[in-house]
């Protein structure tokens, strides 16, 4: 790459040049001056190659005078790969792309040219120092790349200069991390800690300090914590025993099977209930009749139906989840604005296309609400089922500890149950965010 006389540029001259370009038009003078400090001017002769596709993408270029032919490599999928650049055009923007370390195009000077070169990394650092302004410039780059270079696929890779969350970057895990960081900055986690300590404090005071009448038989917090952290637990169950994890694993596995089964059957059923009047007329009355029956009432039937206790437990766990999932999915379908199905009809979608392109995605927010309820419900029906029958599992631990008068173990089982249940419902929420990017982005915009 021929580099002739790389010279610094006077800020005043550069200001004028940058203000005439599309991406930098809107930038404040103060920032332009900082950009001037990292800019160089370089001149080229006709016939010089500035860079080739595949070379390192280091600098961003701005044409001050002359003509440069810019040809995007075939792999980039530009609609119009050839472009002749003149005064005020900006190129070499691969230097600002996230996953692109190399040049995507070949740039050849066709008429003696003077260009400004700015190191991409340093430019990004400058933007990061003023994220609001940086963000504007980057979005103008996005527009320029789509419009002038006809490669819309790349704009997602323009590095975000975001202090706040901006919609373009709101993807899956990012959103979750963003929420966590916002949450930590708000007073909420500290209030939560305060709430928890008041709760545990009251427990401690009630049981161990004041020995209140109702709490006399209850294990105190110190007893529970000591037992939990004891390598040789008095009642046989603590963080150090293999048994403890076996119970957790068995319960988690049961809930997983029941939850997956409930989802696999409940979501399609709910979709059909909401979609087809006929299906609803047949099934909904039966559904509504079975739904209010509590899980415990199903226990005898479950034991009669399933000889093996394991399947009986899973069946009981499945039931409540299934109803929650199916009902919410049905409500989800019914909540879909009629305009969407009408619009799809207008646009020539067949009945099955309407189902897969409108009904299913449209119901998804409700489906995930249903799944969150479902996973919670599955935990409490699991415990009911495990208390009645089964070996192993957290419900079993709580029940046997009661009959065998191991009170601290009951509390250990309860707290573990709460924690594991919380984790599973958080997992469902994350899965929902992942599948409903559009909703996450809308909500993120609403929060701004």
């Amino acid at each position, binding site marked *: 790459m021929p580099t002739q006389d790389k010279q610094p540029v006077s800020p005043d001259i550069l200001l004028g040049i940058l203000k005439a370009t599309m991406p930098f038009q809107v930038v404040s003078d103060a920032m332009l001056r900082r950009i001037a400090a990292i800019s160089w001017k370089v001149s080229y002769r006709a016939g010089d190659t500035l860079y080739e596709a595949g070379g390192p993408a280091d600098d961003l270029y701005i044409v001050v005078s002359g003509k440069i032919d810019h040809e995007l490599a075939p792999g980039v999928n530009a*609609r119009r790969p050839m472009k002749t650049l003149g005064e005020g055009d900006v190129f070499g923007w691969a230097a600002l792309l996230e996953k692109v370390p190399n040049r995507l195009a070949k740039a050849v000077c066709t008429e003696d040219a003077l260009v400004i070169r700015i190191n991409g990394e340093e430019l990004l650092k400058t933007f990061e120092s003023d994220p609001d302004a940086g963000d504007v410039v980057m*979005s103008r780059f*996005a*527009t320029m790349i*789509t*419009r002038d270079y006809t490669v*819309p696929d790349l*704009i*997602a890779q323009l590095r975000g200069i975001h202090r706040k969350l901006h*919609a*373009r970057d709101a993807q899956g895990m990012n959103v979750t991390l963003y929420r966590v960081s916002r949450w930590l900055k708000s007073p909420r986690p500290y209030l939560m800690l305060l709430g928890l300590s008041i709760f545990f404090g009251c427990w401690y005071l009630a049981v161990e300090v004041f020995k209140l009448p109702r709490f006399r038989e209850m294990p105190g917090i110190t007893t529970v914590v000591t037992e939990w952290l004891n390598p040789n637990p008095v009642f046989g169950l603590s963080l150090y025993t293999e048994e403890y994890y076996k119970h957790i694993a068995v319960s988690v596995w049961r809930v997983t099977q029941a939850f997956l089964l409930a989802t696999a059957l409940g979501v399609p059923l709910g979709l059909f209930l909401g979609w087809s009047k006929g299906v609803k007329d047949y099934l909904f009355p039966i559904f509504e009749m079975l739904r209010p029956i509590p899980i415990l009432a199903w226990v005898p039937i479950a034991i009669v139906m399933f000889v093996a206790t394991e399947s009986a437990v899973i069946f009981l766990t499945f039931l409540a989840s299934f109803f929650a999932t199916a009902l919410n999915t049905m409500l989800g379908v019914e909540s879909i*604005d009629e*305009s*969407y199905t*009408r*619009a*799809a*009809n*207008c*646009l*020539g*979608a*067949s009945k099955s*296309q309407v189902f897969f*392109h*409108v009904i299913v*995605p*449209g119901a*998804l927010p409700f489906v995930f609400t249903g799944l969150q309820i479902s996973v919670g419900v599955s935990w409490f029906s699991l415990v009911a089922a495990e208390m009645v029958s089964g070996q192993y599992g957290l419900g079993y631990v709580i029940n046997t500890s009661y009959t065998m008068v191991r009170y601290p173990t009951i509390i250990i089982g309860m707290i573990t149950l709460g924690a594991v249940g919380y984790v599973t419902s958080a997992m469902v929420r994350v899965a929902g965010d992942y599948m*409903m*990017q*559009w*909703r996450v*982005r*809308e909500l993120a*915009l609403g929060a701004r």
Partner: protein
Amino acid sequence: MSGQPGKLPGGAPTRGAIRIEDVVKIYDPGGASVMAVDHCNLDIAAGEICMIVGPSGCGKTTLLNAIAGFHEITSGRITLDGEVLCSTERPKSTPGSDRVVVFQNGALFPWKTNLDNVAFGPIMQGKLSKAEAREKALSMMADAGLNGVEHNFPGEVSSGVRRRIEIVRALMNDPKVLLLDEPYRALDSLTKSVMHEALLEIYYKNKVTIFFITHDLEEAIFLGHKVAIMTSRPCKPKKILTVDIPHPRDYGVLTSKRFRELIEETNEAVHEEAVKAFQSGEKEG
């Protein structure tokens, strides 16, 4: 009639003529029946912008729903280019991509990106492959000045931009008629004025017949070749006005003498119906 579509660049449009003949719509014919549309007759020429003006709840949307195929008519006949859409014998037409509706509250699918929304029609109809449809959608969006929002979701762009995308989505199907149901109702007046010019720009390129429902008289006269002022429920044309301001129009028209005259000429008729609608206590909608 200097507002004739035939005077537009690129020759006279030949398709999209709608004829509404003696259409009656009675809701709930069994019990307490309400007549929404009363022996309505209206002729819309191919490539014409026809504005339907009337107070809220007068039954304009019923007419649109009958053309689009969302609702049945009780009697009468609606034809499109001579073909019967619906009639007394076959009261409900089948919705199709030759008559695309742009809805009052917008109906871009929020779960699809703007680009995929625009590409939706041809993909569903199997006319284009996914890649071809996206390609076409990109260039149509670019033509309508909608660069930079292709990969956003509808919820991330302003309502004005959403409306334009929805119109482009409709045009992707090369429809004979665009049916617009108060599309700019929720927009502020500044955005509205931009949208009007954008719509006209799109119209000059595509010359599709436009059936445009509104309750805004200025909007109607500014955009339309023809303005049908409807009576309040039951709905039928009270007065049909031919707007003799030549197209292409721009915002200068609003201050022109002729525009003011036309407003004055029609204002009374519209006001009368609005008062009637108000007194009969029809609900908004």
